[in-house]
Structures are given as structure tokens and as C-alpha cells.
């Protein structure tokens, strides 16, 4: 359901008649309605193509260009239509958004152009409906990546500039992580790569039999034993380089614990440890077996290449993420192996001189047969054995072939899913944040409205109009509705800050007595306050007293929150409080704008007509623009503040 909140507002207001008999206070009068000419058809001329729509439709989203008074800038009085010099094809989608509440993304248009149109018409890209959102984001990401690649290719040598005062450690770490940032790092990168290769090759060559030249008959000896010194020196050199690199990385790492636990550092350690262990192990026959085993671990040096190769890292990651599927494959294979090995063993049991000496011995046969290797070192001789052997090999093909496509497709699915899940999580967070913001925006807008003079209905004609001139009719009526609710229940809406402060409010003592004198100020409804809510006057006092306190603290922090804005004018106004009232009015206006400028920055225009979570579209976005434009409240407020300064 498209969220046309504005459509339902009249209904909500009408339903407020249910509160009337219950209200213990008189309800505020309704906002003045301008001459309603009824709904009319607007003509929007976009580069010659005329679109016609009801004014109500456009008014649904008051935060956008077409929904706000901004469109008046484009009004052509001669032709009586709104003229936009933009792409008419794109405009179709924009207009449909107003009609249906969902923004669709055109498939055949360039995403960049679409984005520009959205920005022009004041629509946030998050409004793109779910049906088109994924594709929109994908295309946008593609574009962004392509642009990023181009940029990277352009500035080949320049990496991100480090802050000037970065320590040696930070520079070292950066050199390690991004080798292409400086020539030294690049040299180091290639040198280590070279030594890894040398080490691996040495390990391999060491075992090749070299022809012993000096002996007759030529005795085959592995090169490692022929030239032990040479290989030892090469090994030492490599290990020294690796150790040095490891220690340097350890020194440069921003978080040493994390570095120690990372996979790459573990690989490094495993690569160099055998050498050191070998150094300290005495060369006697008993331990040499273990020593030889240690040498096997030297082959792990090849994994050090994964620092140099992106592909290896990706492979490692995907294997890790496919672990469950691989486990399943392994499990099903194991099951089949055990079954067939048992069968083959018992089938071949009777034969003389059979290879199938035990079930575990039969495992080897089963594996070799099932994977269709067929070495032939173990073959069944009985007929039953041969039959079962053939069944084994046939089923082997099936058992292995079946999980593999599953694994492959799983792998690709998992890979894409991960990407999508991350995207969705981020989207969800953004959406929730936006909803929260809109809700608080609505509330804050209402609280702002109250402070601006919603309370003073009669006395302050033009000033009030001045304050609230940019408030839309929708907001007027919505705020009036909330105000009626307040009056009915004799409680007021506040925000979290004030609520918690009020809970811990200290007794006011002297302030209260002065404030009661203030409550007799010529403020319309306040005279009626005493009947129902005697605490209202005190609340005002608390608020204003708090404002003194906060102003005297003089912290900018107060200004940065809307609560602060509600409670106190800017610190400049404190000095102005000693000035004459009408002067302070002007000064206060400026300060309010100043403050508003601060406030308007963190509040993004929240266009929130989501299908799932409809919330007042007027609230969020309007807050910022209202704050931007509103001048200070009523003069009635000022005499009170002046009085406080005299305390």
C-alpha cells in the first residue's frame, strides 16, 4: 500500500472527535485553512511533454521538489504550467513515484543519469522500490567500481597520502600492506617473493639424485647429501630473510595480538620454526627421524605466496566457506568405502595369498576403485569379489560425481549470498535508522512547533505567522492533532532527554516562586492551566530554569541537540538578554538561524514513504527546512527570558 499519509490525515483528525468529551482542557483551535479551491489538476511540462496530475498527488511528499513550494520557481504564468528542462522519459518514473509510492528504476537508462534526475527532483535513492533495488545497486556498484579502476589506473603510483606525522611503524605497516606505494616496499616484496621461490625450489632439488662424479660406479645420491653445505647456506639465508620479515611485520603491526593470531603469521612461523628446531636438535640417529619430519614442514613456505597472490587467498576463503559441503562429500565417501571394503574383505576371505588381509587393507582397494584410479596392486580373484568390485567402481563414479556439482553450485551460491546478505544487512540498518529518524523527526517537529508558538494561539498574530510561515498545511494539521491529544490527556509529548531530566529534576526553590509570577503573563491558555494541570506552570519554570543553567554552562553541546535548541537560545542571546526586548528579538532570530544551521546539517532529508514502514514524510525533512527558515518564537517568550536573566 503506498503510503499517502496526507490522504489519511483528514480522517485521523476527524476521528479525534472521540477525544472531545474526554478532554479536561479545551482543545486548541484548528489551524486556519487557506481558501481551498478544491483539488486541481496541475500541468507539468517536461521538455515539451505534458504531464497532468492532481495537486494532491504531488503534495503527498512535501520534501521533494514537486511536493513543496520549490516548484513555484518553475511556474510559467503565461502558460499556466510548470516547466522543467529535463529528460521527459526519466520524469515518467519520478511522477509514478508520487502516484504509487514506489520508485522504479528504468532498465535501459544509465544509472548515473537516473541518479542525477533523482537528485534534481529531491528524491533520495533509497526510495527505489524493492523490486528494482537490487538491480539498481548492482549497476551502481559496477559503475562505481569501473570508475574506481580507471582512477586507480590513472594514479598508478600515488597511494593514499599518509598523515604527515605518521610514525615509522605506521609507514612500515603501510609498506607491507600496499607494496606498490613506495619503491622500497616493492623491492622488499619482490625480494621476499624471490626467496620464497628459491627456498621451495631448493627443497625440491635437494631430493633429486645427482650423479656422483668422483665415485665409480656412479652412486646415486640426492643432491642434498652431495652438497650439504650449499643447501644449508641457502636454507639459512632464506630463513634469515623470513625471520627478519616476520619480526618487522610484528613490529609494524598496529595490533600485535591480532597479527599473531592471523593465518599469514602462523604460516610464517610454521615456515621458519623447523629450521630453528633443527638447529637445536642434536644430530643423532634417534632423533633424526623426527628431524626429517620437521623438514617436511618447510614445504609450507609455499603458502607464503598467498600474500603475493590474491587468487590463493580467494581460494582459501571459498574452501573455508564450502567446508560443510566438503564435509558431506567426505562423509558419504567414507560410508561407501566402509561398506564396500567390508563386502570385499568377506568376499575375498577364502582365497589364498589374498591382498585383502583385513578390512582396513581393503579400504585402499575401495578408494582406488571408487575414484576410478585402478592401480591394480590389489585385485579380487573370486567371482563374488569381482562382481562386488565392479559394483564398487560403478557406484564410485556416482558417489563422487553427485556431490561435486552440488559443491560447485553451493560455492557459487554461498559466494553470492554472502555478498547479498551483507548488502541487505547494511540496507536494513539504513532503513531502520531512517525510520527512527523520521519518527523522531515528526516528534521533534511537533515539539518545535509547540515551542515556536503553538501554545500561544491568540495573542501573537503576525509573529506566529512569521515563525511558522514555512510549515506546510499538512504539518499544521498534524501538529494540531497531536496538540488535541495532549489536551485531552493533560500530558504533553516530550523527548527522551527532557523526560529523563524531569525524572531527576532537582527541586527549584527560588525559581518556582518567580516562575509563578511569570505564569500570569499574557499568554492565552496559561490562564486556564490552573484548572487541570497545576504542574504545567512548574514545568515551564523547570524548562526556563534549565535554560539558564544550560546557558550559563555555555557549552556548544547543548546547541548540538534539538533538546538544547528547545530549551535555550544560543549563548549569544544571553548577552542580548540585557538589551532591549525588540533588539533581542532580532538577535535571537539570528542566533536561532545560526543554531538551526548547526542542527540542519546532521538531519538528512528523510523521505520515508516506504511501503513497509509508512511514517510521516512531512516530519523528517521538514524539520531541517523549518529550522533553517524559522525565526525565533514569540515576543511573549522574551520577557520571560529577560526576567530570568535578572535573577
Amino acid at each position, binding site marked *: 500500500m503506498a503510503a*499517502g499519509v496526507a490522504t489519511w490525515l483528514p480522517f485521523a483528525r*476527524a476521528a479525534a*472527535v472521540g477525544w472531545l*468529551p474526554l478532554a479536561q482542557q479545551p482543545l486548541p483551535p*484548528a489551524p486556519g485553512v487557506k481558501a481551498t479551491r478544491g483539488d486541481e489538476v496541475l500541468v507539468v511540462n517536461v521538455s515539451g511533454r505534458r504531464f497532468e496530475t492532481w495537486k494532491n498527488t504531488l503534495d503527498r511528499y512535501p520534501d521533494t521538489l514537486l511536493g513543496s513550494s520549490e516548484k513555484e520557481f518553475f511556474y510559467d504564468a503565461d502558460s499556466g504550467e510548470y516547466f522543467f528542462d529535463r529528460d521527459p522519459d526519466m520524469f515518467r518514473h519520478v511522477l509514478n513515484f508520487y502516484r504509487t509510492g514506489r520508485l522504479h528504476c528504468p532498465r535501459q537508462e544509465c544509472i548515473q543519469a537516473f541518479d542525477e534526475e533523482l537528485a534534481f527532483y529531491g528524491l533520495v535513492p533509497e526510495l527505489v522500490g524493492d523490486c528494482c533495488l537490487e538491480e539498481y545497486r548492482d549497476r551502481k556498484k559496477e559503475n562505481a567500481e569501473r570508475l574506481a579502476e580507471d582512477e586507480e589506473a590513472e594514479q598508478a603510483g600515488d597511494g593514499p597520502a599518509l598523515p604527515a606525522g605518521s610514525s615509522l611503524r605506521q609507514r612500515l605497516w603501510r609498506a607491507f600492506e600496499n607494496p606498490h606505494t613506495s619503491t622500497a616496499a616493492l623491492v622488499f616484496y619482490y625480494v621476499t617473493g624471490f626467496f620464497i621461490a628459491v627456498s621451495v625450489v631448493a627443497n625440491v632439488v635437494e631430493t633429486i639424485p645427482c650423479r656422483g662424479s668422483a665415485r665409480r660406479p656412479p652412486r646415486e645420491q640426492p643432491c642434498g647429501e652431495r652438497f650439504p653445505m650449499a643447501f644449508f647456506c641457502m636454507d639459512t639465508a632464506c630463513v634469515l630473510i623470513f625471520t627478519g620479515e616476520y619480526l618487522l611485520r610484528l613490529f609494524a603491526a598496529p595490533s600485535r595480538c591480532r597479527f599473531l593470531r592471523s593465518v599469514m603469521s602462523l604460516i610464517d612461523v610454521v615456515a621458519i620454526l623447523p629450521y630453528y628446531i633443527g638447529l637445536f636438535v642434536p644430530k643423532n640417529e634417534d632423533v633424526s627421524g623426527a628431524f626429517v619430519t620437521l623438514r617436511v614442514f618447510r614445504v609450507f613456505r609455499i603458502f607464503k605466496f598467498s600474500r603475493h597472490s590474491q587468487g590463493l587467498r580467494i581460494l582459501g576463503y571459498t574452501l573455508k566457506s564450502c567446508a560443510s559441503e566438503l564435509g558431506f562429500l567426505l562423509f558419504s565417501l567414507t560410508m561407501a568405502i566402509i561398506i564396500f571394503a567390508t563386502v570385499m574383505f568377506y568376499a575375498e576371505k577364502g582365497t589364498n595369498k589374498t591382498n585383502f588381509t583385513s578390512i582396513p587393507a581393503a579400504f585402499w582397494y575401495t578408494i582406488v576403485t571408487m575414484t576410478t584410479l585402478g592401480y591394480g596392486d590389489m585385485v579380487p580373484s573370486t567371482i563374488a569379489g569381482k562382481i562386488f568390485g565392479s559394483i564398487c567402481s560403478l557406484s564410485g563414479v556416482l558417489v563422487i560425481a553427485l556431490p561435486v556439482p552440488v559443491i560447485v553450485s553451493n560455492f557459487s551460491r554461498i559466494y553470492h549470498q554472502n555478498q547479498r546478505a551483507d548488502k541487505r544487512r547494511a540496507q536494513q540498518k539504513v532503513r531502520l535508522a531512517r525510520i527512527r529518524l523520521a519518527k523522531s523527526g515528526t*516528534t521533534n517537529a511537533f515539539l518545535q512547533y509547540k515551542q515556536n508558538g503553538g501554545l500561544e494561539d491568540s495573542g501573537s498574530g503576525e509573529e506566529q505567522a512569521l515563525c511558522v510561515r514555512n510549515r506546510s498545511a499538512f504539518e499544521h494539521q498534524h501538529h494540531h492533532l497531536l496538540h488535541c491529544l495532549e489536551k485531552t*490527556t493533560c*500530558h504533553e509529548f516530550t523527548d527522551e532527554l527532557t523526560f529523563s531530566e524531569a525524572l531527576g529534576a532537582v527541586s527549584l526553590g527560588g525559581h518556582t516562586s518567580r516562575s509563578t509570577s511569570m505564569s500570569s503573563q499574557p499568554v492565552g491558555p496559561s490562564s486556564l492551566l490552573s484548572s487541570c494541570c497545576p504542574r504545567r506552570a512548574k514545568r515551564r519554570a523547570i524548562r526556563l530554569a534549565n535554560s539558564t543553567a544550560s546557558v550559563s554552562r555555555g557549552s556548544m553541546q547543548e546547541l548540538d541537540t534539538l533538546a538544547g535548541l528547545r530549551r535555550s537560545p544560543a549563548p549569544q542571546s544571553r548577552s542580548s538578554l540585557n538589551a532591549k526586548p525588540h533588539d533581542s528579538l532580532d538577535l535571537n532570530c539570528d542566533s536561532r538561524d545560526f543554531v538551526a544551521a548547526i542542527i540542519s546539517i546532521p538531519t538528512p532529508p528523510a523521505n520515508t514513504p516506504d511501503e513497509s514502514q509508512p511514517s510521516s514524510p512531512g516530519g523528517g525533512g521538514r524539520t531541517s527546512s523549518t529550522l533553517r527558515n524559522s525565526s525565533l518564537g514569540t515576543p511573549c517568550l522574551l520577557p520571560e527570558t529577560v526576567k530570568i536573566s535578572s535573577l
Partner: protein
Amino acid sequence: VGDRRKARLSPSPLPADSVEDEFELSTVCHRPEGLEQLQEQTKFTRKELQVLYRGFKNECPSGIVSEENFKQIYSQFFPQGDSSTYAAFLFNAFDTNHDGSVSFEDFVAGLSVILRGTVDDRLNWAFNLYDLNKDGCITKEEMLDIMKSIYDMMGKYTYPALREEAPREHVENFFQKMDRNKDGVVTIEEFIESCQKDENIMRSMQLFDNVI
């Protein structure tokens, strides 16, 4: 009265299930009676009815509003509190034929009473809203339910902080004012009489004259 409902899958009242709702929505299309008839039945002008229907149809293409939709719509206006209970009561008040959904006729009929009716009509409507079981009198329990639902809409952050007894006290005040013969219930006559004597209420009744 012509056949108002088109192609329904089942003659039973519309199920509240969301799954079935999806399915039903595509086949059930409720069309209201003609414009002239509505003009006769309500006090709206032709243009006003047109504007109302356009908005209504846009939001609810199927032509009816279910209770869930209703609650959702209403909650948009009260982001701080929980308006679902009050919205449920409102829904019952609008749904005059108690078929579980509010059609355009119900909607417009209700609005017509509130916005264009006489003060007595409006008071009657309010009474009907409070009288949850529609037995002609408001008991303290009914009033307490209504009051709690209204206070729920205020939410947590209010000044002064909402106490548990606030609705009850309010109900006591209400009964003190309205219940003439102190028999523990408020009948329609007592209600209208007491409201007519209260200036504030009379004045506020004019508040919503120009909502549409």
C-alpha cells in the same frame, strides 16, 4: 440496492489472515454505490466525495480497509505511542455493519457524521465509539479501556510522566461529570445532556468543521 460485491471467492467475511488477504485482494474488488446515492446518504458535496474517493482508492485499491491496515494507517500519526488499541475501537465505530472491514461507504458515512453532522450527531457518534459492546450505556470498564488506549498513544516520554492511575482518575472525573443519577453507567441521554452543559466541549465540537 444493487449487487455491491464482485467476484468473491467465498461468501464468508474476509479472513484476517495475511496470506489469504494477498490472494483475496486480487479477486475481491469492492465498488461503492454510485456517486448520487452517496451524495444523498451523506452531507458531502460531489467534489468532496470525489476527492475522498480518489484518496481512498489510491490507498486501498481493493476498496476496503481491513483492521490491520486501519491500525497501520492510524499509527503513522502517533509515532511516539501505541495507537493500535484506539485504532481498533475506531475501526469498530466505523465498521457499522460489523463485517470486519471498512468500505468506502462506511468510511464516508462516519466522516459525514463527524464533519458535517449536528452537534448531537457528533455526540452520538462519540457515544457509539465509547460504548464498546453497543448496549446503549457506557460502563466504567469500557471507559477505562478507551481511556487507556488514548493514554497509550502518548507513549512513554511525556510530561508529567504518565502514572498508572492517570487513566483511572480521568475516568472517575468523567463519570463524576457525566453520570447524573450515579448509577455507575452513562446512558446516551446523560451523555448528551452533560456535554451540552459543558461549554468547552460545545466549543471544541466546531473544531473539525473544516477538516475537509
